[in-house]
């Protein structure tokens, strides 16, 4: 298979899957090593962006997925039934950002940072599959610990946790 053919197959695979397809799966299906597949997909991502194609490829934790472009929002919304896209409340967003930056973290630690009980925010975020119970801490009471999901990365346009935006001061520290 030449590279053009490989790209074509990958396009078909991503379309059928709809969901994210891991680099591992792609490599297995194509019988091509992961680093080559990664290179090819990265090329595809660039081409799709350069050509301003109607679909783009996003990467989430070494998985790839098609999605539409934000700038086509109004047209697509006209076609699909108005989605009940309930945004996140301020409380839920606060809780989420604490989990994102401090994971793994217990409920008590979240409560302490926010200064309020975060129980309802936590269950809301779990419902929305943005955080999950990643196990229990090996300490008195064996409290549950929480981490963010791949779905969180996807909805916030992050490839991985290293891509979390840094605060100005944190950036300055890194640069110095």
């Amino acid at each position, binding site marked *: 298979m030449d590279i053009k053919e490989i790209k074509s197959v990958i396009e078909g695979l991503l379309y059928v899957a*709809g969901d994210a397809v891991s680099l591992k799966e792609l490599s297995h299906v194509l019988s091509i090593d992961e680093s080559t597949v990664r290179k090819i997909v990265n090329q595809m991502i660039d081409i799709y962006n350069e050509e301003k194609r109607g679909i783009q490829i996003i990467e989430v934790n070494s998985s790839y997925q098609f999605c539409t472009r934000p700038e086509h929002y109004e047209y697509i919304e006209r076609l699909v039934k108005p989605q009940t896209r309930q945004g996140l409340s301020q409380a839920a967003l606060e809780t989420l950002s604490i989990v994102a930056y401090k994971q793994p973290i217990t409920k008590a630690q979240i409560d302490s940072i926010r200064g309020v009980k975060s129980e309802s925010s936590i269950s809301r975020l779990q419902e929305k599959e943005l955080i999950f119970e990643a196990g229990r801490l090996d300490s008195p009471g064996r409290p549950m610990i929480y981490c963010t999901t791949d779905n969180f990365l996807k909805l916030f346009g992050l490839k991985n946790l290293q891509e979390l*935006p840094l605060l100005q001061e944190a950036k300055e520290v890194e640069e110095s």
Partner: protein
Amino acid sequence: MSIKFKLEKFEGPLDLLLHLIEKAEVDIYDIPISEIAQQYLEYLDYMQEMDLEVASEFLVMAATLVEIKSKMLLPKLKKEDNSNQEIDPREELVQKLIEYKKYKEFTLLLKDKFAVYEKVFYKTPEPIEDYISDFTSITGVSADLLAKTLNTILQKNSTSSKRKVREIHREVYTVDDKIKEITRLLVSKSVFYFEELFNEQANKYEIIVTFLAILELVKRKHLTVEQNMSFDRILVKRKKQIS
């Protein structure tokens, strides 16, 4: 000094305190505690006036603020390690505020990202099982196979089927046949021109039968016809889903 509060929802006592500190434009490391405590209590009163439920965390913070305020009035305590440094009663609160402020800023950054990616759509994943089973069912299946299959059946059951086949023979046009034909077309097409119903070689008899069939279907309210002017093309439209 009193502050006019607008009905704003604070996510907790730390959120409210930060708001008051920012509003007063004071240094977070050197909070004028009695002033801020005063405003904080005013806000709680205001919440009660508005009949809002004041969460217990707000009350605990109020007590903490009052405690800090009173400690500030007492002679300063030295730190336990005898380093001669004085303990600032505000220190713990300040640390909490700074930590909280950091995550509040993170929240804003995430919110910006979310605003972009919220406008992105994903395809619902294919019901893969259906997809694959349908997919496999067409491997080895083709339209030609359909024709072959039917031919075989017709030959096999020649006695009974031949009669059936003659029944829908096309050489003689009947209004009933035409109605069936049009009904079949209507399933897949909601709008077509009258002349699409027969080919160029159609004889007068077929055209007349077709026209009668159309009239019958109009009567049955299955379709409507439109013509802009005399001798213009006749547009036939399906009236409703045939059911």
